[in-house]
């Protein structure tokens, strides 16, 4: 019985804390959302010239493909994939394009070295 009473106490505490924490989290999220809307408004008033260009960069234009063509290509590739899956084995992982740089001249080599991923990132 003592255990059950303690269980009740834990329950009261637990329910209170869970609700409190998620309520606070929700309030914070409302505040962040409100801030975000204000920020966007201000950025828009500040005009297309300034501010956070890297956010917009992300939404690249992509050339539209007519839905019908899209469906046809999809169907073709899927059918092809299904058909070939049992015969084709994956091409070996093409890791070393390496010597290219001396064959294709210095210009092309630039791209390759940028690919050089020691720093594991982009520059």
């Amino acid at each position: 019985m003592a255990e059950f009473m303690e269980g009740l106490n834990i329950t009261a505490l637990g329910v209170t804390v869970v609700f409190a924490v998620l309520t606070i989290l929700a309030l914070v999220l409302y505040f962040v959302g409100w801030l975000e809307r204000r920020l966007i408004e201000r950025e828009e008033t500040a005009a297309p010239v300034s501010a956070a260009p890297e956010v917009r960069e992300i939404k690249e234009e992509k050339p539209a493909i007519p839905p019908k063509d899209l469906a046809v290509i999809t169907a073709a590739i899927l059918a092809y994939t299904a058909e070939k899956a049992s015969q084709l084995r994956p091409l070996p992982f093409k890791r070393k394009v390496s010597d290219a740089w001396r064959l294709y001249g210095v210009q092309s080599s630039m791209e390759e070295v940028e690919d050089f991923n020691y720093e594991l990132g982009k520059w």
Partner: protein
Amino acid sequence: MAALEQAIIDFFEHMGLLNLTVGNIVMIIVGLTLVYLAIRYGMEPLLLLPIGISAVLVNLPLSHLVNWPVAPQLPPGMEENIFATMAYLNQQYGPPGLFDLIYYLLIKTEIVPLLIFFGLGAMTDFGPMIADPKTALLGAAAQIGVFIAMLTAIALGFSLNEAASIGIIGGADGPTTIYLTTKLAPHILGATAVAAYSYMSLVPLIQPPVIKALTSKEERRIRMEQLRPVSKREKIIFPIISMIVIALLVPTAAPLVGMLMIGNLFRESGVVERLSKAAQEELMNIVTIFLGLGVGSTMRADSFLTAQTLMILGLGIVAFTSATAGGVLLGKLMMKLSGGKINPMIGAAGVSAVPMSARVVQRMASEEDPGNFLLMHAMGPNVAGVIGTAVAAGVLLSVLG
């Protein structure tokens, strides 16, 4: 020749077949049942298949994949010291089998459950919850099931620590259940883990009757407004803010929520795709294998084949049912307060089991009205339920741990 005969006799005396107990046989059947359910009905196969097959393997006698007990009697003061514990167990029970190493080094140290949470964070889109923060409360309401199941377990004679581990099943979060049980009551880990994953996959059967019983046809037909868009910036800020807020309020929930949110930040930041992919795939897959094998290896006849286990499986239903009810009832309250703008069914999705309970809600909504799309609205409580359960586990840990 006598020596040969002796060798053969010795060999056969150590044959597993002659040492098979009834308990072993029952556990092998239990394990095979899990394997069957996983393969035949696709019940959470990523966990139940490894759990089932390793339960079979560890119950084949003398197989040396497990040499150490799951919940050993330790000299006083050693309990808390994992290094001393392992050296002691090695002394007492011989060198560890592979599954002992997995259990003691990877699961008992919480490495695996926390890395799973890390991967889950990298897989989860909290967008719906950010778009409509009030739905987070429904994720809180569903945790009521955790405490109702806990109280029921206490009433049935379980200790406080066991009852808390059983209650958390109602959170419908496998890794949280494993995390808490390992800390509070490791001897029932097999039972609570199996219950959690089994019922998670049975959500589509458990929830609909409860939801129907608590809502009217009109309520289920309520349509909700489309969610507002969420910016990339908000999605990046969310994991940081959540981590800070929750860890400041409930430090014992910090490991779970912290790892979840680090994973989510990796996902949303967009600058560490290599790491985010690794968290979701290579690391996640490897860790999932070890989780399944390690949990399954705790299912030994002596600790699993008890009346307790059956009661735990029964209490799991109590937990899931009351969690669903909790969510739906708060949903009804919010419906009334909002003047009918909220469909109470989305409260049921507060039982995380992402995204299954959200899909249950969507399915029930379209049954009543094929043009009613609640899925994204149900995803809010659904992901909030993950956080809610971690907080509940934190409270239980801080009081009992």
